[in-house]
């Protein structure tokens, strides 16, 4: 499968967190851990205020730094997804240090987890869980040529040098 992109339409996201909880429910994580977070950014002074939300999770980078640093070979890039094999994970935390999105989580059980791109569901022809959960249809998972690049924001994304598979539209 060729590389696909997570597309976040920031003109639509209302920060409702349905994606956060849908993802957490699927992953079966402890209460205080999430694989998908929504950053809430409030700017300006009353009454000229503004705010936006930024959906953050593993963006399955084209050049994933986590894969390069994993000493156990637990991380790999395959079929457009960065996979983490929990059986091989030695819980060293090297991947966490290099991920610009804080998207790799250490579990109390002694291994790490991350967004797997819902590859099992995607391979069944479904959309990823977070995309299906989005009431606003702000999230989508698309191939590069499907992306409307009108107002594509790339440069201000931290870690853009790793070519994260995400596009924020604004």
């Amino acid at each position, binding site marked *: 499968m060729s590389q696909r992109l997570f597309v976040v339409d920031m*003109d*639509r*996201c*209302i*920060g*409702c*967190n*349905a994606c*956060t*909880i*849908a993802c*957490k*429910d*699927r992953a079966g994580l402890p*209460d*205080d851990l999430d694989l998908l977070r929504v950053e809430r950014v*409030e700017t*300006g*002074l*009353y*009454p000229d*205020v503004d*705010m*936006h*939300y930024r959906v953050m999770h593993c963006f399955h980078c084209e050049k994933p730094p986590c894969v390069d640093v994993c000493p156990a070979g637990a991380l790999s890039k395959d079929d457009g997804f960065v996979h983490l094999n929990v059986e091989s994970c030695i819980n060293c935390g090297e991947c966490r240090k290099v991920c610009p999105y804080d998207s790799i989580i250490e579990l109390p059980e002694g291994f790490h987890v991350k967004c797997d791109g819902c590859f099992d*569901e995607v391979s*069944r022809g*479904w*959309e990823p*869980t977070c995309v*299906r*959960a*989005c*009431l*606003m*249809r*702000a999230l989508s998972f698309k191939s590069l040529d499907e992306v409307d690049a009108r107002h594509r924001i790339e440069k201000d994304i931290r870690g853009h040098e790793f070519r994260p598979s995400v596009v924020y539209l604004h």
Partner: protein
Amino acid sequence: MPEIEYVPFTCTYNCGSRCELVAHVKDGKIIRIDTPTARIDSETTPRLVPCVKGRARRRNLNDPERVRTPLRRTGPRGSGQFEEITWDEALDEVAYRLKKTRDEYGSEALFHATGTGSIAGRGFNGSSASSRFFSYWGSVTERTGSMSYHGVEVASEWILGEVVQGSDRATLLDSRLIILWGNNPAETRMGPNTNYFIAEAREKGARVVLIDPRFTDRGVLADQWVPIKPGTDAALVAAMAYVMEKERLVDTEFIETHTVGYPDYRRYLIGEKDGVEKTPAWAEKVTGVPEDGITRLARDYAQIKPAALLAGWGPQRTEYGEQSARALITLACMSGNVGLRGGGFAGIGYRSKGIPVGALPRGSYQPVGRVNSATWASTVLDDSLDPPIKIAYIVASNLINRCPDTGKNIRALEQIDFIVCQDPYLTPTAHYADIVLPICTDFERTDLIGSWPQGSRLFYNHQIIEELGESRTDYWVFSELAERLGFYEEYTHGRNEKEWIAFLLESSELDVEGLRQDGILRQDGEPEVALARFRADPRKNPLNTTTGLIEISCPEAEKAGLPSIPSYVELKQGSIGYPLQLITPTSRLRARSSLHTNPWLQRLEPHTVWINSKDAAVRGIKNGEIVEVTSGVGRTRIPAKVTERIMPGVVSIYHGTWYQPSSEGIDEGGCANVLTSHITSATGGFATHSDWVEVRRVDN
């Protein structure tokens, strides 16, 4: 390995929506909650995608606050000390008390206090089961008036002759201007696709304006935020109307052909009634909205067509809520947007057509509305009722938390001899009960569930998991009580829930197999435009008013002690001695007080009091620190959110978190209704957005 079964369902909260969800079930347990996987969006019938509350429900399955057996109180009321008893012991005692009270005082001595913790069923849950039960038992005391939309309901009846609902959401796609006036669907929902259609309209070029004391989550998608002082909406309307009048932007043809009473309102606008011209400069002082902003807003609203004026219910939860609701309808008439596709006004705000299925038969007793929905406790405490309330029978209601003035609600309950509470959860209200009866949730029972503002839908909720502990349905409890009180046959006709549902469906002409299998029936037609027929021909399709037209001036208002026209009246009662106005909006993380205990939801956003940085600075309050909020009736401790997203002079606490008194009796749960008072509007409307407070640092 056992197969995963995918069972469709919808929630039964008072949340403003009925959405399409799917439970993944394995070994009789819900292992995940999801949406349908098929893509079914089309332009007018998009998927009803569930919100964060529905998605988080798995975390409530083993809630420590779930009641698992019947309980009898052993400690003082409110102490939370109970002993477990058997169903027979509990039901025998309740039946004995019911009989004894009716014999001694009459059935009206029973206060049937229902809430909306479990709604939308066909007679087996919450008030749908209990009101049927009491219809066979006797005329009981009930609450009157809607806690949600009393003001707009009364106003709509006066001005339109009926409670006209808004247009279908899909018609927003034709809007070129959408004004969200005290309306925040990102948090209140009110239709699973309201936000979606607004975003779609915006993508097609519609401008979105948010008029609200807070820059709400909805504000993200608004092109303009107009902060306004709570309770002054009718003044902003008057100034917008003044500009439209002065600049000849009023749709005089619509006014002349479809309304009566406008000349009287016009005289008010130009100062002929009270000597005050309702200029933008006048309104700036009242509302806090800058003069030039009012002028621009008036021009935009008068000239960009069609324009949808979507008023929420917050503005009408004030001392003069009827006036703001009437004023907003009047403004829609002046711009000629009434009955127009893509225009319109919200009214009660939604269209819910439903798919008719039969109803269960009822007995002959009617309840008596002896107390107000919001302020029942004042009536209980002033000893004016004859017979007095001797039993509070509380069903699906976190009554003390949900009604204004929690402290007073508790004092009123303490006066009542016997309190029964039927609920899945040991709520703060259940702590005051003598007997708590454990009810199962909608995952644990079967029902037919109607739709909400989203077009015609009917849902079939299968029982997905076994009842937790000894919990039972409300219907089962009332069947057992009916047997003890001698009307089992009348109440049940010998049927359980599933047999009733089969009976109702058999006598319908619906695709019953499809409904059972898919969990949902859809009947989509052309999206409806409210008042379109009236607009087309007001003589042929008159309204149910005296004149058949929209009555901008109405004598009924005068009879209720209000001005005959929808003029602005200053809030009077709440402000004495307190400098900050309090609003208590709906959180996206709870449905009223339901789901409060869900740790997944709690973690998403800390529960705080919002305070503007200027108000915080003069009080030395820092972001995140615990503050004490006090009003004339109570106090609560809660972290402060120091923010630019709220107007100076206004503070905001989301309602619905559970009352949690410390050992000194100070609420530490940030329960908004600890602070709200029993102020009502002229016609008895819930007016908690008229309350004022002070916020102080807590010095340790």
